[in-house]
């Protein structure tokens, strides 16, 4: 009897703990809407999303986030171009080809990449990658979209690799056996059977990697250059939404138009990453059903 009561108490306690994350999420959403929406009293919806200039501290101010939004997407696209082939190829190698000993070495190494703090990536980018990019392409400055994309790509690789690898290794053995039975060799089986069967999981991995790249702040603040112009090439400095918030929040007057504008950017980011996560979730569900 006493034991049952104790069990019950602990159960409730743990339920309370797990509810905490929902409370926090709700709190964040409420604050984002409360502090972000007032900006639309000052500027119109169209001017905010399609305005080409971000001059929040001038008189009169301009709150156009188009350059920042495109900057974020531009850098993220560049990161994916680098991270998807590398990430997926490593996943295929680890789960299909690698000798267990090599697997035991590579897998932790890739996972370790995820544990490096983003400031360290940023510092490494500023001191090593940016000068290399500058020299190699003969550019006036090394802080640009390409440098940021390279670093974000490396940062997104662990996410993409580990989730893709899970998806690839959870493809039922019978699929492969059927393929071999039909006379296909290992390469044909991997490319035509295993990877397509894991396509849903790999897409999920790519979407989550994209979320990682789009939300990254410190690294892009340090290496992307930070020019709030609409990006036209990868050799040009760009500014992302995250970098704008991080750089400007500290000195703004709390409750000012600028303050609300920064929260509105945060709201845009939140909606973007939320839809990416939901998309990833939907894909995972579909993938599971298909394999059954």
């Amino acid at each position, binding site marked *: 009897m006493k034991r049952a009561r104790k069990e019950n108490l602990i159960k409730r306690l743990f339920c309370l703990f797990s509810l905490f994350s929902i409370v926090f999420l709700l709190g964040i959403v409420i604050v984002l809407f409360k502090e972000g929406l007032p900006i639309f009293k000052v500027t119109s919806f169209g001017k905010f999303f399609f305005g080409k200039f*971000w001059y929040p501290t*001038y008189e009169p101010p301009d709150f156009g986030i188009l350059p920042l939004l495109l900057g974020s997407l531009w850098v993220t696209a560049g990161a994916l171009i680098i991270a998807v082939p590398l990430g997926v190829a490593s996943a295929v190698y680890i789960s299909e080809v690698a000798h267990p000993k090599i697997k035991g070495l590579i897998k932790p190494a890739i996972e370790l990449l995820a544990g490096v703090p983003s400031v360290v990536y940023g510092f490494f980018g500023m001191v090593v990658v940016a000068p290399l990019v500058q020299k190699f392409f003969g550019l006036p400055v090394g802080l640009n979209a390409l440098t940021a994309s390279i670093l974000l790509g490396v940062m997104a690789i662990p996410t993409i690799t580990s989730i893709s690898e899970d998806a690839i290794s959870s493809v039922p053995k019978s699929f492969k056996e059927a393929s071999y039975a039909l006379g296909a060799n290992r390469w044909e089986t991997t490319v035509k059977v295993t990877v397509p069967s894991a396509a849903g999981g790999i897409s999920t991995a790519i979407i989550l990697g994209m979320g990682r790249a789009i939300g990254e702040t410190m690294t892009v603040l340090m290496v992307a250059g*930070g020019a709030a112009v609409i990006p036209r090439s990868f050799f040009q400095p760009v500014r992302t939404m995250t970098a704008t918030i991080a750089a400007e929040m500290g000195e703004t007057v709390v409750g000012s138009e600028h303050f609300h504008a920064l929260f509105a950017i945060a709201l845009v980011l939140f909606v973007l990453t939320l839809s990416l996560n939901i998309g990833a979730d939907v894909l995972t569900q579909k993938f599971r059903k298909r394999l059954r």
Partner: protein
Amino acid sequence: MKRMILQGLLGLFILGLIAQGVCAEGGRLVIQGSTTVLPIAQNCAETFMKSHPAADISVRGGGSGTGIAALIDGICDVADSSRPMKKKEILKANEKGVNPEPYVVAMDGIAVIVHSSNPVNKLTLTQIKDIYTGGISNWSELGGGNQKIVVISRDVASGTYEAFGKLALKKQRVRPDALLQASNVAVAQTVKRAKGAIGYVGLGYLNSQVKALVVDGVKPSVKTVLSGTYPISRPLFMYTNGKPKGLTKDFIEFVLSEEGQKIVGKQGFVSLK
């Protein structure tokens, strides 16, 4: 076993309460605000606590706006700021019954820097303005080599940017393709690496790897900033709520004293004495 852990936790909790009580007796002072003023506040606090062992001073950065907001909300006792408070902030403070009292604790000059290989040694304030607002885009227009000017600026909300914008750019808009860097150190780093770059940093961040330009015929230095001849200089503030009392008063007096001002000089700023 479980009981032991619980007892241990309880003991720690009580210990924490006691520790807090002891600190409160010695007097607590919370300083928050501008990252430019941070080294002054930090070093002054360290020296001050050596001679006043009972005092417990915590210093935080976060930016001028954050510090002023904290002062208004009563979270900190002293707000560091690299700009004077804005009208809106003063109104908000008065609404909440806070009377911000400004103290100029140091002067800071903003040096315009270029790559050390750049043949240009001096510019006028108007030329600097034209570079930053988009009128001039090539060094050849200024007597330098045929090289595109890479304009480096600070994030629009930094105190250094604000002072530079007001004193050098006459509040005109910086060209949108200017690079944004989030700190003085980052600006100096970028200028050091890019041949066509121009940037601006606080006097304390000048080093031998970049070249500081003569502006309107005046070289940026401690002397020219203090005499007011160097055109791009600004005061740095500490704000208190009303005339300071007790520990806050002692601390502000210390910062303004000979010893405090010596620390200001050591941190690369221009001391008032």
